């Protein structure tokens, strides 16, 4: 039966090509615009570490002085060196890493390559197992290298391609800011987006080229890159003794009770620091998991949400337009439908036939919309935004395009089909 309806639909659509083309175009435009913005929203609000994100938390403490104090204010986004080290050494979580961003000059051994700056991550060892970072060659460093401030470095696969032509470079030396560091590992393809663990650098596309132990970065006086927020009389930014927050601290807590216990630990820690005189404010802690953290930091640009709503509104306009066109088309065929009714087709059967016809229009519109979405995403990628290069259609969004298109066209076809089925067959036959 479905095949027959499909055949009828194709014949009917072929009969009035202009009207069909207009309907398909209306749906295609609406779907194209909506899918472009929905894809951007989908990419930007995605989970950077699927499967792991629910166990990763960003603890926040409030070490500031009473200047600018407001009750119920949010604690800073980052931690001080002293608190970071204390929490790290307390080892109350399954895994924990203290880190910050940097920028280092790389001096390639090959004379063909000029020295260049590369973004760096200075971190403690748990960074790699905690975030599930894949390795192409070699391995990460461990707690002993952290303790010894070992001059070791892990590089990204992109940097490895640039410096060593993609060959296994573990064991070789890399000159960083005039210091010789031994490469112990090369990362696989690892580009978490958003750049969740440090949103001060870049929200999207901020993956680093070199990773080295935080202790070594301090010993070698490597430059800090990222946010530093100071209070009181300040001091030199981003140094261990300064009253500044400039490091990110992440913990892995596998179960909700563990997270609750860690929260209690943070409160106890704040109370202890207050009684020691280091903290002045009452305990003010937060323990957000990764997705809550991204939400709190408003990582997805407000513009993108707004554009999505505008595009969906545009889709609605296109649908209303399609409803009008379908109404004209279906009602014009009253005579044909009357004959079918007289020959014994039920209203239900007619309704189904007309819905199949709208579904076919939706499918064609979806195909057109897909092409327009590809065009739209190509235009988005040409924008000078951090997230622009990420705007690509994936399998889920491809499926979504067709579901949305067919769903929308069935919705648009419902009212005209219902109207067309209600005609009295006798009247139609007589008038012919």
């Amino acid at each position, binding site marked *: 039966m479905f095949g027959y309806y499909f055949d009828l639909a194709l014949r009917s659509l072929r009969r009035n090509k202009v009207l069909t083309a207009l309907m398909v175009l209306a749906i295609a435009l609406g779907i194209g615009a909506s899918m472009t913005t929905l894809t951007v929203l989908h990419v930007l609000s995605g989970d950077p570490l699927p499967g792991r994100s629910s166990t990763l938390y960003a603890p926040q403490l409030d070490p500031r002085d009473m200047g600018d104090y407001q009750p119920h204010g949010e604690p800073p986004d980052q931690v001080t060196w002293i608190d970071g080290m204390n929490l790290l050494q307390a080892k109350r979580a399954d895994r924990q890493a203290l880190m910050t961003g940097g920028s280092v000059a790389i001096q390639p051994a090959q004379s063909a390559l000029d*020295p260049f700056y590369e973004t760096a991550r200075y971190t403690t060892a748990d960074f790699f197992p905690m975030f599930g970072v894949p390795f192409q060659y070699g391995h990460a460093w461990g707690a002993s290298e952290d303790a010894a401030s070992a001059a070791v470095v892990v590089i990204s696969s992109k940097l490895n391609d640039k410096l060593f032509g993609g060959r296994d470079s573990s064991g070789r030396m890399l000159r960083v800011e005039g210091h010789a560091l031994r490469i112990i590992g090369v990362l696989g393809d690892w580009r978490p987006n958003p750049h969740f663990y440090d949103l001060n650098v870049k929200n999207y596309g901020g993956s680093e080229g070199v990773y080295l132990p935080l202790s070594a970065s301090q010993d070698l006086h490597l430059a800090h890159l990222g946010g530093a927020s100071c209070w009181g009389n300040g001091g030199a930014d981003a140094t261990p003794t300064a009253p500044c927050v400039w490091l990110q601290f992440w913990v892995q807590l596998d179960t909700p009770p563990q997270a609750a216990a860690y929260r209690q630990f943070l409160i106890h820690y704040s109370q202890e620091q207050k009684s020691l005189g280091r903290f002045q404010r009452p305990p003010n802690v937060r323990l957000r998991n990764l997705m809550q953290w991204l939400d709190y930091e408003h990582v997805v640009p407000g513009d993108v949400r707004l554009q999505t709503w*505008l595009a969906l509104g545009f889709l609605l*306009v296109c649908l209303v337009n399609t409803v009008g066109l379908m109404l004209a088309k279906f009602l014009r065929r009253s005579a044909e439908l009357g004959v079918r009714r007289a020959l014994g087709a039920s209203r239900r059967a007619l309704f189904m036939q007309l819905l199949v016809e709208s579904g076919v229009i939706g499918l064609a519109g979806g195909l057109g919309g897909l092409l327009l979405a590809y065009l739209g995403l190509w235009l988005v990628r040409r924008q000078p935004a951090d997230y622009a290069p990420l705007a690509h259609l994936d399998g889920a969004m491809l499926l979504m395009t067709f579901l949305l298109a067919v769903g929308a066209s069935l919705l648009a076809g419902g009212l005209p089909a219902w109207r067309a089925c209600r005609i009295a067959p006798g009247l139609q036959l007589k008038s012919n």
Partner: protein
Amino acid sequence: MDIRPILSTLNRHKITAWLLILQIALTCAIVCNAVFLIHQRLQQMDIASGIAEHELVQIKFAYIGDRPDAYAQAQTDLATLRQIPGAQAVALANQLPLSGVDMSSSCLKLHPNQRQNTLEAASYYGQNLLATLGVRLISGRDFQPDELLDRFGISAARIVAAVKAIG
């Protein structure tokens, strides 16, 4: 012109009339919103920064490794830039206005006992900066050369030079 026949036609095709009304209303709402948003953006772009935007060239230097003579080297670089024909003023600065995420700012208070900050203001450090940026002083005066404190840690740091050229 009599409007009644028009209304009665519309009345006879109620669904079509409502569809048209709905479509026009929705389109209007979306277009108005979009125009308003674009207008807002354009307004932001037109905010006067007070600096001679069209006459300024920003140059970033990158020294690799430690340079003990970084300050002297920076002075030589600035002197070289000054000699370029058409360059009106040259200054070394920690940052330039509207230059993106790399911002340095300070909280300001007007009284010593004030709890809440009055505002957070971007901070710019550099010699001959006002003249180079083309900023107009409303009152008071610019720094005297002997009032400048040299706290340059230029070693391995990137610095920004602004060159004001004849526009």
